[in-house]
């Protein structure tokens, strides 16, 4: 019996795309499916369906762990004939990184946006990094092309999102500026951090790196309030923090 929980796991960066040899985030999302051999479909649209990226996906998700597949929207004559039927029968849909603007354009052209919403509502776990994180939110900060700017996502999660939220990154300043200018409140994640949403509520923040953190951003008048969220390191159960939100938040006020 499939879970009917709607789940999205948004990586600030990480998984097989960025953390070769560190499978913690990929293991985490596989573990959310209750299947012994989960069906996992990779959507590499944001990379333009780059061959080398697809190969790396299959290496990271071998046949003894899961039933892996991918859909190339640039090569529809290959692969599943009916993307809707194929995506709806998955346990996990994994969206790769690249250009979020290009990806959303291609998805709309093939009706993938509506299919992903239907998959989410049926309990298929949705995850991804970078562009594959930004896409699930109502608004997002993309730094892919020149200066970071706001972009509209699929809107499954009614928040804004910023990825690769590294200290000193230009995206950090850009996200603050955008929130100050009226972008809705939301969540940011450093590389190695995954924001796990159940329904539209943030349920847990996990990390593949001990020091990596997730953040919640809100506007308070002219100020932006950035709260660091307690983040559970997945690597060593002995030091894992499993504190419920929001008590676990440590608060920092940014001007």
């Amino acid at each position, binding site marked *: 019996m499939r879970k009917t929980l709607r789940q999205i796991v948004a990586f600030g960066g990480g998984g097989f795309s960025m953390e070769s040899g560190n499978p913690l985030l990929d293991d985490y999302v596989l573990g959310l499916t209750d299947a012994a051999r989960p069906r996992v479909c990779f959507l590499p649209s944001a990379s333009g369906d780059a061959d080398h990226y697809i190969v790396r996906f299959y290496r990271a998700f071998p046949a003894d762990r899961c039933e892996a597949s991918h859909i190339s929207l640039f090569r529809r004559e290959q692969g599943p004939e009916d993307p809707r039927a194929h995506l709806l029968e998955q346990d996990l849909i994994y969206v790769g990184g690249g*250009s979020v603007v*290009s990806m959303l*354009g291609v998805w709309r052209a093939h009706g993938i946006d509506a299919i992903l919403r239907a998959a989410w509502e049926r309990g298929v776990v949705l995850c991804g990094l*970078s562009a594959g994180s930004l896409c699930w939110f109502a608004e997002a900060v*993309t*730094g*892919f092309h020149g200066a970071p700017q706001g972009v509209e996502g699929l809107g499954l999660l009614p928040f804004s999102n910023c990825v690769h939220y590294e200290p000193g990154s230009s995206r950090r300043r850009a996200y603050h500026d955008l929130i100050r200018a009226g972008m809705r409140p939301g969540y940011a994640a450093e590389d190695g951090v995954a924001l796990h949403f159940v329904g539209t509520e943030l349920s847990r923040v996990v990390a593949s790196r001990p020091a990596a953190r997730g953040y919640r951003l809100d506007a308070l008048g002219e100020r932006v309030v950035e709260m660091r969220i307690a983040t559970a390191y997945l690597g060593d159960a002995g030091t894992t923090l499993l504190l419920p939100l929001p008590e676990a938040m440590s608060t920092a006020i940014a001007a």
Partner: protein
Amino acid sequence: MITRVLALGGHDFTSRPADRAVCELMLRLATTRAGGRPRICILPTASGDTSEQIGRFYSAFGERPCDPSDLSLFRLGTRPMELRDHLLEQDLIYVGGGSLLNLLAVWEAHELSAILSLAWRQGIVLAGQSAGAMCWFEAGITKSSGKPLPGAGLGLLGGSLCVHYNNEPDRRAAYLYAVGDGMPDGYGLDDYAGLIWEGAGPPSAVTAQRGARVYRVSAGDSGVVESPLPTRFLPAPAPAALREDIAEFRRITAMRKRAGWLD
């Protein structure tokens, strides 16, 4: 201002005579527009900006008297570019083949459609093959969704276009059906056949390979009619005397340079 379009039914960037003849034609159109050494930019969007397509383009034009460049919308993260400025300073914009549906969707997302329309009005040669040829018309027959089906283009040129005409019988059949069913009249282009528009008059038809044909396809009272058009044969220039090992090295270097993609 003269507008210029070169629509090609299909070709490659190899050193075969037919491919060299096609590149020579592009170079001539671009040089005429430039009045000197031209700038030629490939938009590989329809392929998903594959290294292969970009590498082949550079291997064809890298040694010719022109300044080649590529604008890869999926790779702006590693190679930021001012889209409008870069495109409008070109003499020829070449659009590669792939998915017509994705090509238009990604262009729309990056607001490129309006820039290309402006480039056209400024007399920049708009060239392309396959999806990159159909995109300039109102409609074409695309396999973007797997099977050959009608798809919309930018509509800079009125009418429709079907590429790989006799090379892909299922595509031709879908085109004949679509024109009979109300798709605007247009043209069928075999691989190594092309149509050149320079200004407002009718296009001139060219081929780079014996047996390649250009058809006018129109709906009449008694069904859809295919009329072959007279064509001019494009001679192949002498092959460039480039050592194969050097050419190979350049192809690999170009591919490596453009391998980054992550957001």
